[in-house]
């Protein structure tokens, strides 16, 4: 007999309250996770969208790419030895539109590579978020440190760096703006292990992201919130099932007295936990994915199905552990004590 189901049917209010709390906590976790992913994407989509490989910067730069400067002869040697490699530079800056309105951008330039936009002299390729600001293909943009003008040739989707839209420009134009002759970084894609290059320090994509101070601090704070929510939900499971079990101690004792196995009582509790959690998670996943679709464009929100499923599995595991820990008292219940306590 399915006692778990019969109890839920009879005590709907109790289980609906428990389910609602699990729904609210999981929904909040999904939303925070979506915001964390969105912010992380907003901060470093340019780097995150690159294939796995290794970045290289000067050893002297002390892990700060802004201070890095690759020797041109070494750069040529690396590019010669690694056909897919690219030398690149990233600098924060501004462009002015026809109405002299300033737009913050991250200037990116690179040697010829399919990983980065190829841009001719005097051309600029922008992240699509600038389209919303009224900039169109064919518009002319200026920069007060650049003698010429930039003509907008194209928009690209989701290319952000340090929360600013990326602006791909030609290498010569970049060198003029920043009064530099060399590039800051080398990127060699597809490397499982980094090459040892004298004078250069290597970073995996993940390690390189962590050298961006804002990215690391932001991600740590948001991930901390997510883990706290997961831990809190685990405790909630444990507390709720503990309270329910305390209320049912007498009943468990009687059931044990008439011969019900302890394992049957545990299975009953697990079945209820999984049923409530799965229903609560299905609703939270549906709502959070719905929110993913209707989230305002300016809001950095990205919730992939993969991370939703991963979090859902984590919730089920946490719920199972919480319920099981609280259910350990079932094992301790003495039938005799329950009988002497009166009606359940």
């Amino acid at each position, binding site marked *: *007999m399915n006692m778990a189901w*019969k109890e839920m*049917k*009879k005590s709907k209010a109790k289980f609906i309250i428990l389910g609602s709390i699990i729904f609210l906590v999981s929904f909040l976790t999904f939303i925070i996770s979506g915001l964390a992913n969105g912010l992380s994407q907003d901060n470093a989509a340019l780097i995150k969208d690159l294939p796995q490989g290794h970045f290289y910067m000067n050893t002297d730069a002390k892990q700060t790419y802004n201070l890095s400067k690759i020797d041109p002869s070494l750069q040529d040697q690396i590019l010669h030895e690694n056909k897919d490699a690219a030398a690149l530079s990233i600098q924060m800056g501004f462009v002015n539109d026809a109405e002299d309105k300033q737009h913050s951008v991250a200037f990116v330039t690179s040697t010829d590579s399919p990983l980065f936009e190829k841009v001719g002299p005097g051309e600029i390729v922008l992240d699509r978020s600038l389209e919303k600001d009224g900039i169109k293909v064919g518009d002319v943009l200026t920069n007060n440190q650049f003698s010429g003008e930039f003509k907008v040739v194209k928009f690209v989707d989701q290319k952000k760096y340090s929360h600013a839209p990326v602006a791909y420009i030609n290498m010569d134009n970049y060198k003029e703006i920043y009064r530099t002759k060399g590039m800051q970084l080398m990127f060699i894609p597809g490397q499982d292990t980094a090459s040892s290059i004298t004078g250069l320090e290597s970073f995996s994509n993940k390690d390189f992201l962590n050298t961006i101070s804002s990215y690391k601090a932001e991600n740590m704070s948001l991930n901390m919130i997510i883990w706290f929510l997961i831990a809190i939900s685990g405790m909630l499971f444990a507390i709720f099932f503990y309270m329910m079990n305390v209320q049912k101690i007498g*009943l468990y004792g009687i059931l044990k*007295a*008439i*011969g019900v196995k302890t394992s049957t009582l545990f299975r009953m509790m697990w079945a209820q936990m999984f049923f409530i959690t799965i229903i609560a998670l299905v609703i939270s996943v549906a709502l959070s994915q719905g929110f993913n679709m209707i989230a305002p464009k300016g809001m950095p929100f990205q919730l992939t199905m993969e991370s939703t499923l991963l979090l859902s599995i984590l919730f089920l595991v946490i719920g199972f552990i919480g319920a099981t820990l609280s259910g350990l008292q079932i094992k301790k219940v003495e039938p*005799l004590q329950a*009988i002497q306590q009166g009606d359940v």
Partner: protein
Amino acid sequence: MTTFTIHDVTKTFTNGEVEEQVLNGINLSLQEGEVTALVGASGSGKSTLLTIAAGLQRASGGQVRFEGNNMTAMTQEEVRKIRASKFGFVFQSSHLVPFLTVEDQLMLMLDVSESNMSKRERKEEVAKILKLVEMDHRKDAYPASLSGGEKQRVAIARAIIHKPNILFADEPTASLDSKRSKDVMTLIRDLTKTLNITTLMVTHDEEMLPYADHIITMKDGLIVQ
């Protein structure tokens, strides 16, 4: 026929450094188709004896033998199996499962006793037993909507649905008025006879004694009569 015997059973409770001997060597035999009543003042050890006999707690010494096997030497799982399939229990309070209907209370007991009846046979058996205890008209009711007497009738039905060899009843009429108490005792006596069950009952209500075949009086952990 004797199927259940108790040999020199003792029980000592330890409370801190104080030891209290509750049973001082009890010997007892129960006969099939008979109701044996345990009577005695409060603290005489009758309820302790019943719970030890029913395998709900362990004796400190002596043997409880059921169908030739010494239950005091069995594992907890072995005792549980006996409780589930061979024993029936009626408690002072009905102790029904609050979220199960009357019919489901009995179906649960058939599940617990691992009955090999089909679902249809189980339903028929439940209907038969409910009719026997005159509760067939309330088969879909939940315990909260039953009167004290009705609850106790359902508890008795649950205790006998799996055809136990022994029925243990711990003050089954304590929570009932005089009229209902007599009805419940008549039911227990009749079922004991018709189903050939061995019944051991604890009571302190002298009005219930005429329903018993044997009366055992206890005092200070000993059988005195």
